[in-house]
């Protein structure tokens, strides 16, 4: 059974069909690319999966559970984490505090436990603290941990968002253009890190990215969208040679005329 399944998912805004009849899925423990020209509906699809907007047709399910009527916080609690195309860090907080918030779901203690300082509270906070330290190490931000998040460079902010999303220990990590604004070297390091996460922790990653060489090298399977529709799907080599995909990227349409 696929980890995440989409069945005829669609959503319109006004008269525009932003996402139309998308049927696809991702299996556990792989890296999946979601690509397409600007305005193809990729981010809208992310928002539909994470519950920020609701589909007006079709169903999304995660491990067989329907997500369609669940709130974003419930969907997150099922094990889906994400980052944003337009970075959404908590800018008034330090780097470390951002990641601590990301680990909100991990702390299984009540407010009362925290107030009376019960052991469960202290253990959970210590575990979270250690986890956050290791995540900051992973994304190479340990040295910046007490700096305000807003003072980081663009690439560092993207890495911080990644660490914050990982803090919830998700089963599915959804990255919206994680390499945007990164130089070649940074993007290469990111690719290495993502592949390592998949092989070492069994994490499943769904990634929107415009950096084609990165997607083609990194992903096990690629889903191509254009104008809200699924255009093609398959392994990177097959997708790269797909005539419809080439037309979409070269501004096809006229090509047949």
């Amino acid at each position, binding site marked *: 059974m696929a980890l995440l399944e989409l069945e005829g998912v669609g959503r319109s805004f006004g008269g525009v069909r932003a996402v139309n009849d998308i049927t696809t899925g991702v299996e556990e423990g792989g890296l999946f690319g979601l690509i397409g020209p600007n305005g193809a509906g990729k981010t809208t699809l992310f928002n539909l999966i994470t519950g920020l907007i609701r589909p007006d047709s079709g169903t999304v399910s995660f491990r067989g559970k329907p997500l369609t009527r669940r709130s974003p*916080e419930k969907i997150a609690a099922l094990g889906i984490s994400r980052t944003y195309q337009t970075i959404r860090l908590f800018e008034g907080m330090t780097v470390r505090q951002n990641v601590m918030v990301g680990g909100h779901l991990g702390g299984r203690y009540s407010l009362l436990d925290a107030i009376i300082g019960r052991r469960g509270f202290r253990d959970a906070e210590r575990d979270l603290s250690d986890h956050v330290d290791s995540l900051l190490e992973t994304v190479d931000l340990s040295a910046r941990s007490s700096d305000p998040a807003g003072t980081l460079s663009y690439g560092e902010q993207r890495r911080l968002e990644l660490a914050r999303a990982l803090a919830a220990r998700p089963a599915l990590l959804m990255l919206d253009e994680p390499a945007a604004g990164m130089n070649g070297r940074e993007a290469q390091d990111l690719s290495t890190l993502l592949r390592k996460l998949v092989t070492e922790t069994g994490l499943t990653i769904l990634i929107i990215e415009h950096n084609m060489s990165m997607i083609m090298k990194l992903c096990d399977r690629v889903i191509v969208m254009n104008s809200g529709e699924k255009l093609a799907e398959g392994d990177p080599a097959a997708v790269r040679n797909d005539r419809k995909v080439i037309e979409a990227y070269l501004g096809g349409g006229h090509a047949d005329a």
Partner: protein
Amino acid sequence: MGDLLQFLASYNYLAYLAALNAILALSVYIMLMAGQLSLASMGFMAIGAYTSALLMINGGMPFAVGLLGAAALAGLIALAIGKPILRLKGVYLAITTVGFSELIRFLALNWDYLGGAMGLNGIPQTTRTWHVFLYLAILIFLFHRLDRSRYGRALRAIGLDETAAKTMGIPTARYKTLAFAASAVMAALAGSFAAHYSFYISPGEYNFSQAVLVLIFAVFGGLGTHWGPVLGAIALTLLPEVFRFLQDWRPIIYGVSVLLVVIFFPGGLVGLFKLMIPGTRRKASPIAGGKDERHGTA
């Protein structure tokens, strides 16, 4: 000797008033932690004051029952109206909560059972100054613990980016409603203690300018930690007394002090202290999760 007693008596009253104001400032602050500007505290303070006063006068109940009744009623009302009200943001939420407080005041003004414009007389004077101090101390402790838990961090996160907080698994609507209820209970208990400190309450005590004053306490002190509202309330309660010799100029000094701090020290009084005391300056707001908190070094 007479002068000394006079001094102690007035000092006692000032200390009580500073602590009471600090509690009210904290009731506004817990909502500000979550980025929500609520001015409902005066309404809840009135609910608390009238509830416990009537439970004791007409119900013959002990003070403890009066306090419990006040807290329970305010908490339940906040839970009932919290969810719809807190869908509103920014200035709309502020206006709605002002409306709520005014509604409570008009109810007290026009309902004979509550004494109308004449207010309630003959309230048992059961509040001791130490009650209010103990209450404030408990609140400071609770805020201290809240700040160091995932719940405190979640409130801050909601205030900074509610959507991002949701996708981190934080039930934002529920947490905002619970913070609203906590704020209501805090204000209602303050109202009860205040009612039973004096002999008499009237609707005029819970007006809009009082609500704004409490907000100023919090902002003046600084919103980075719960010490801000506490220090702000204490400073602004004592300031008019310190400058008593200025007579008619006092309100102007008061206004100028508030303006100076707000304009030049956005971190409030707490931010100002941090600038003056070396080694306490932090790079960002002191929320739980700073490395130094865990290891006790800066």
